[in-house]
């Protein structure tokens, strides 16, 4: 299970997480979210150390990091655009 979860519809595709990931295991998606932005994807989840750099640098608080990789799968994704 992934230690890092991206709320892809909250993402604006700035790429800050990709820039600061020390393991270089993030890339921007080919697809777009409901705002029309690309969003980050993990290329190699096993190498993620849950260091939290992506969480710290994300301007949109779209990232959740959990070292144990628990309960993240239940996280509801943002769908309401305006509020």
């Amino acid at each position, binding site marked *: 299970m992934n230690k890092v979860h991206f709320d892809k519809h909250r993402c*604006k595709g*700035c790429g800050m997480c990709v820039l*600061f990931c020390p393991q270089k295991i993030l890339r921007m998606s080919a697809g777009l979210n409901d705002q029309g*932005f690309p969003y980050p994807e993990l290329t190699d989840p096993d190498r993620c150390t849950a260091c939290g750099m992506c*969480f710290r640098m994300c*301007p949109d*608080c779209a*990232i959740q990091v959990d*070292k144990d990789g628990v309960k993240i799968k239940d996280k509801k994704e943002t769908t309401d655009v305006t*509020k």
Partner: protein
Amino acid sequence: MPTLKRTNVLTEVRTHYCPGCGHGIAHRLVAEVIEELGIREKTIAVAPVGCAVLMYDYFNCDMTECPHGRPPAMATGIKRTQPDKIVFTYQGDGDLAAIGTAETIHAANRGENITVIFINNAIYGMTGGQMAPTTLTGMRSTTSQDGRGEHGEGPPLKVCELLSTLDGVCYLERTAVSTPKDVNATKRAIKKAFQNQIDGRGFSLVEVLSMCPTDWKLSTAQSVDFVNNEMKEAFPLGVYKDKG
């Protein structure tokens, strides 16, 4: 390590900020500090005019909206009538250092017991990239197309250095949000600024150097480099005053 997740002091509303803007990081840090200090129920925030004009939608605490440049004056009134509340203002460089210079300096000089978060991105963001008081020498904007300083604009205004001469000021620090290390330092500075207010020590201001990729016309990576290489040189980071 505990789970790193979005704090409840921020609402679920998606911000209107441009991709790569430093405001989102600064919002998160302020919200996390409010949560950690357990002061959400008694915090009153004063929103500015500028890019952060809609921040009342993003925070789960009491918010007010203020005329351009006047947050320190409004915060003074709120704090004096309700001294048990925690009052902070969140202002950009056009708001705090241009139209609100008088309010800022006099609130600081009076030693009002408020916290000011000052976001310095060296440009007017919301109105489309005009020259701000903090625009760097030689930097191009829509109103300084040959670079600042070529036509008598003068050098950038250094707010921390300016306010450090005033006796009423308790705490001044300049930080940045361009690297994870700087983000952590910014959070420590913001926490200290709020703690000073809780302890009744007086006026605290944290200046945060922030990215504006849209109006600088740079990519995210280039704007991070711009803050790290050029802004930090013109605006040295550090503690400028600490009476604590």
